[in-house]
């Protein structure tokens, strides 16, 4: 069985460490905040200029002047700080954020990522995604392994315009956890009940498969 959105988030959450400053993209990455392991604290960075993002506000707490990078109303936690967008991206570009989690359309064996633009569709822009992938050492991409048509998203070479070049080395898909190194994908874990064959079939880029591929446990 391929992973649910929640399981994807749970798997990503295992990469967290106590004291991590984390930037979570829109969509599945946002769910990761719900699965921070017990006894562990992480602090969420929102690239518009907030470190220490809290949950959504109650109706009474809603404040138009306090939003996250997804333009959603949010709150702050004790120990948070608020700053300009230049300072926020100084943090990101300078490599001070410990982990970035974001979605993608495609990744390839060189660690390239395409996530912001599909030619022919209206292009809304990259927002902070290009800065995030260029600034972080530790990035996890979460996405489905293949499109609904069965086209692999793990490619020998990205076909869509890139968000960043050579910057991705960890991918959690609904089928597998894959690392990228030396111009290859390396299969590390498979989703419960998903066969190695299925993963191989849906991975277009060169995939190194070890003798034993552990199954994720939830």
């Amino acid at each position, binding site marked *: 069985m391929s992973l649910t959105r929640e399981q994807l988030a749970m798997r990503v959450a295992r990469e967290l460490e106590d004291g991590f400053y984390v930037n979570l993209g829109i969509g599945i990455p946002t769910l990761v905040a719900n699965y921070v392991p017990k006894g562990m604290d992480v602090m969420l960075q*929102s*690239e*518009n*200029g*907030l470190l220490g993002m809290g*949950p*959504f*506000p*109650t*109706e*009474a707490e*809603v*404040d*138009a*002047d*306090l*939003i*996250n990078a*997804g*333009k*959603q*109303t*949010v709150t702050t936690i004790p120990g948070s700080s*608020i*700053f*300009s*967008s*230049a300072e*926020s*991206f*100084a943090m*990101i*570009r300078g490599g001070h954020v410990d982990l970035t989690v974001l979605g993608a359309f495609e990744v390839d064996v060189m660690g*390239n990522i395409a996530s912001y*633009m599909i030619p022919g569709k*209206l*292009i*809304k*822009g*990259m*927002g*902070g*995604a*290009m*800065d995030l992938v*260029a*600034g972080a050492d530790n990035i996890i991409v979460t996405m489905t392994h293949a499109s609904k048509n069965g086209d692999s998203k793990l490619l020998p070479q990205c076909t869509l*315009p*890139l*968000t*960043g*070049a*050579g910057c991705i080395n960890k991918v959690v898909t609904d089928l597998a956890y894959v690392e990228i190194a030396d111009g290859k994908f390396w299969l590390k874990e498979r989703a419960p009940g998903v066969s190695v064959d299925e993963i191989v079939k849906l991975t277009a880029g060169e995939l190194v498969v070890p003798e034993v591929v552990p199954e994720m446990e939830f």
Partner: protein
Amino acid sequence: MSGFDKVVSSYEEAMEGLQDDMTIIAGGFGLCGIPENLINEIKRRGVHGLTIVSNNCGVDGFGLGVLLEDKQVKKMISSYVGENKLFEQQLLAGELEVELTPQGTLAEKMRAGGAGIPAFYTATGYGTLVGEGKEVKEFNGRNYILEEAVTGDFAIVKAWKADRYGNLVYRHTAQNFNPMAATAGKITVVEVEEIVEPGELDPTQIHTPGIYVDRLIKGTFEKRIEQRTVREA
């Protein structure tokens, strides 16, 4: 008051000198911390051919989106646009040009413009469409692209409080792009919710020193919310 008193008495006075084909740097992120009334004054003036440097372009009928109604904007320099239909229409019709710029690069370009840094290197965008045609240089084994500063004929800024000398304090994440925008305008115009006397703000807690501010006006604000997300109380 002294020559440092930046307060003007009307929005008309605040935007005096604005002409066709000028470049305007605007603070704000989404609809948060945008200079609502200064934007409306730009609309009222009916100037055309504007280049606007702003992270976003508002929504239909609010924020920078209102400047699209009479096709006042020639070009947007932004990281994320297209939250409104007029924008899409004008873009597809070739009536509007967009220069997509990564958000952090955009913030840094504004800061650089205000700080006398004509250009800087960043890894952001290297190997992508953003890097095309830009100078590339290697530092410590990694490739970076050269990005140039931006400045504006006007900068329009929204702050929370100001003293009459133009020292500014922003509220929560309504800070966003406003501090950098404030430094990057030949004429920087700021609208605020409250104006106090010099000395009432703590000198160490001012986000934007008054030296960057040319004109200051007190306004009232709708503060529209783009994504109202709430939890149960």
